[in-house]
């Protein structure tokens, strides 16, 4: 949760349209970059929403539903901006409901099935630690719209991280049963976490323009938050590499995403344009 390095904009923040007028070659990378953000929050938001009505206690059920709604709210903003930048007449809903799995750009971590509540909370925590570090830098993005969205989302994600890290500590340092489940969850999810901080050419182009940070620059902040919390939770950081499972940000997904989309997109696929 440290704010050691913010991305340094080359110039004061400017609207996306102005940035693209000066550098039209950034349009395609920016659409991808924004889809990566929006798809991450969309798929995780959907996963968390699967708990609605099934939470272990009424209070936890509502808290998870609130978190899911926050994430879907971020999705509307990120995918809305992605659609606007793309400029092909698509909306945020079109991007969410009418793309197939291979066109999604979320990291694999968020599509892993929920498992038990321990795995759900561990995944949220591992994501929140990254999400918070990312948004802390995005508030000084060179693109005005991105900085504004990040400022709004950061307040919510601050609470998400507060809550998930607290629960990881309580359950990790809880009973023998809860400790074992949290350790198993961490061991299962660990190989997926490295992708969050693993950049490619698209990331490099956007980072150079000061629009989005280089994913690798988030690693130290993520590492510090995660290791501190896991130590307090008496959980052992797995020894293997954490960047084994990746490819989601390039469109290579696990089998789980297809099933998730089948459920999430059913209504709009069966009744295109349906509204309520």
């Amino acid at each position, binding site marked *: 949760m440290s704010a050691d390095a913010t991305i340094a904009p080359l110039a004061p923040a400017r609207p996306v349209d102005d940035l693209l007028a000066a550098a039209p070659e950034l349009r395609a990378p920016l659409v991808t970059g924004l889809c990566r953000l929006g798809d991450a929050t969309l798929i995780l938001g959907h996963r968390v929403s699967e708990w609605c009505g099934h939470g272990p206690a009424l*209070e936890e059920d509502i808290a998870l539903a609130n978190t899911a709604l926050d994430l879907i709210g971020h999705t509307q903003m990120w995918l809305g901006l992605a659609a606007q930048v793309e400029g092909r007449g698509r909306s945020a809903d079109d991007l969410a409901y009418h793309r197939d799995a291979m066109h999604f750009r979320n990291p694999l971590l968020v599509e892993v099935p929920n498992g038990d509540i321990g795995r759900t909370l561990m995944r949220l925590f591992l994501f929140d630690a990254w999400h918070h570090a990312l948004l802390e830098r995005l508030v000084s993005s060179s693109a005005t719209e991105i900085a504004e969205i990040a400022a709004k989302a950061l307040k919510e994600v601050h609470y998400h991280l507060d809550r998930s890290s607290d629960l990881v500590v*309580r359950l990790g340092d809880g009973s023998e049963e809860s400790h074992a489940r949290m350790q198993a969850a961490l061991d299962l999810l660990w190989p997926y976490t490295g992708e969050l901080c693993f950049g490619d050419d698209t990331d490099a182009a956007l980072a150079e323009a000061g629009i989005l940070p280089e994913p690798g620059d988030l690693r130290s902040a993520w590492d510090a938050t995660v290791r501190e919390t896991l130590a307090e939770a008496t959980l052992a950081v797995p020894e293997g590499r954490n960047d084994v499972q990746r490819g989601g940000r390039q469109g290579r997904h696990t089998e789980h995403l297809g099933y998730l989309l089948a459920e999430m997109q059913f209504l709009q696929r069966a009744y295109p344009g349906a509204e309520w």
Partner: protein
Amino acid sequence: MRKEWPLWEVFIRSQQGLNHRHVGSLHAPDAETAVRNARDVYTRRKEGVSIWVVPSAAITASTPSDKGPLFDPAEDKVYRHPTFYDIPDDVGHM
């Protein structure tokens, strides 16, 4: 080991209100979590700016069967209301 989380009474101060008002109760393992849960359960629609939680067990309540002896005697004592004074015009609205 007891499985149920203890019950907490939740008090919230609204945007305009000066005092905290009782809004309901919830279950939580401890006070810190109770505040968090109260935030999620009772302030989803911007209801509050401050939250208090109190263990329900810490509240001592009057028993319903004592209602008569406790409250009825006040019924015929209208003179306890300050309505028998003439207020000078200079005082204005009270």
